[in-house]
């Protein structure tokens, strides 16, 4: 989704009101309970939280010019991969097999066979429409962040797109470590 993304795609950057900031913090805390103790370090209450609005109804949450979370159209907030690498356990993980790695790194969505074949792993509790971390077979760090299209149980049976690839390594958002 961030295949082509640069600072020119950002239409506006605004510092948000404290009430909005509280709402964002709350929704992030709900979505990622594992992040709660560290939430104060990542999103301090006193620090100005900036939301950058970009094309395709995309909002980026920035703290100190560093993008931390993003969401589309008031959907759930998803962390950037850099943040996920630092705190890997906040999201459920789905693993794809080796052959899929280079396609995912080119922005492809993840098909069910990639998760069900030997080399792939499914976490049975995962529901549809949730953000998940995509790991790769044999690698320690997350490869991408996706949004499930169907629940894990459905993925085991079906073929077709299982997880939408939202953000992957070396995409536009990964390359943008800071946004002025």
């Amino acid at each position, binding site marked *: 989704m961030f295949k082509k993304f640069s600072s020119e795609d950002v239409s506006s950057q605004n510092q948000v009101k404290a009430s909005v900031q509280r709402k964002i913090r709350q929704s992030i805390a709900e979505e990622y309970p594992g992040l709660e103790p560290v939430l104060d370090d990542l999103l301090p209450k006193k620090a100005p939280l900036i939301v950058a609005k970009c094309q395709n109804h995309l909002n980026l949450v920035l703290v100190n010019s560093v993008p931390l979370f993003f969401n589309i159209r008031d959907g759930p907030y998803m962390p950037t991969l850099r943040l996920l690498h630092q705190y890997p356990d906040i999201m459920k993980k789905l693993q794809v097999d080796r052959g899929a790695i280079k396609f995912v790194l080119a922005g492809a969505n993840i098909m069910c066979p990639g998760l069900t074949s030997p080399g792939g792993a499914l976490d049975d509790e995962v529901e549809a429409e949730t953000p998940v971390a995509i790991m790769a077979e044999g690698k*320690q*760090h997350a490869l991408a962040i996706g949004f499930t299209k169907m629940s894990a149980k459905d993925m085991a049976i079906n073929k077709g797109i299982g997880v939408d690839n939202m953000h992957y390594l070396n995409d536009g958002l990964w390359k943008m470590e800071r946004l002025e």
Partner: protein
Amino acid sequence: MAEKPQAVKVLYCPICSLPAEYCEFGPDFEKCKPWLINNAPDLYPHLLKEADERDASKVSEQLQSVGISSAADVAASSSQPGDASSSKQEEVKRLPGGKIKKKEKQEVVIEKVVRNRRKCITIMKGLDLFGIKLSDASKKLGKKFATGASVVKGPTEKEQIDVQGDIAYDIVEFITETWPAVPETAIFFIEDGKKVPAA
């Protein structure tokens, strides 16, 4: 609940900006290899072996060539592998610098193109290789020769300056006077093949 989760420090490759284990999927694994061997040897153990093998074969080659040939040949062959390795190192050094310059020889090429039967255009290519701003250059040219000059984009990224009229033989002097960075030897005319400068 668990303690405060500590931030995990991830080793990112400075060349492809990916976590070290993903370098093989990055844009240029070859460039990452030397860095990987130094900083993350445990991720790619076969790389270490490869590098060792390569060095071992090079050393054995050198030994062989030194042993077989005579004194005169020794000088030549020992310089050859030396050259090969140093040029390889040079290549390796150049590319990570960011810009992959494909051996751009610094030269200015001047060409004359006929526009109507009487009128022609003088095209100058290669001024920007000397660090000259083309927009300033074209203004100066136009003023000096009292004619129109413009910067035109060629079919590739290369840009050239078009000056109306035939100013070929004044141009060499003008260039060398205004921009002393350009030596006369670097200016070429096109007359069915490049010619040495000063007409």
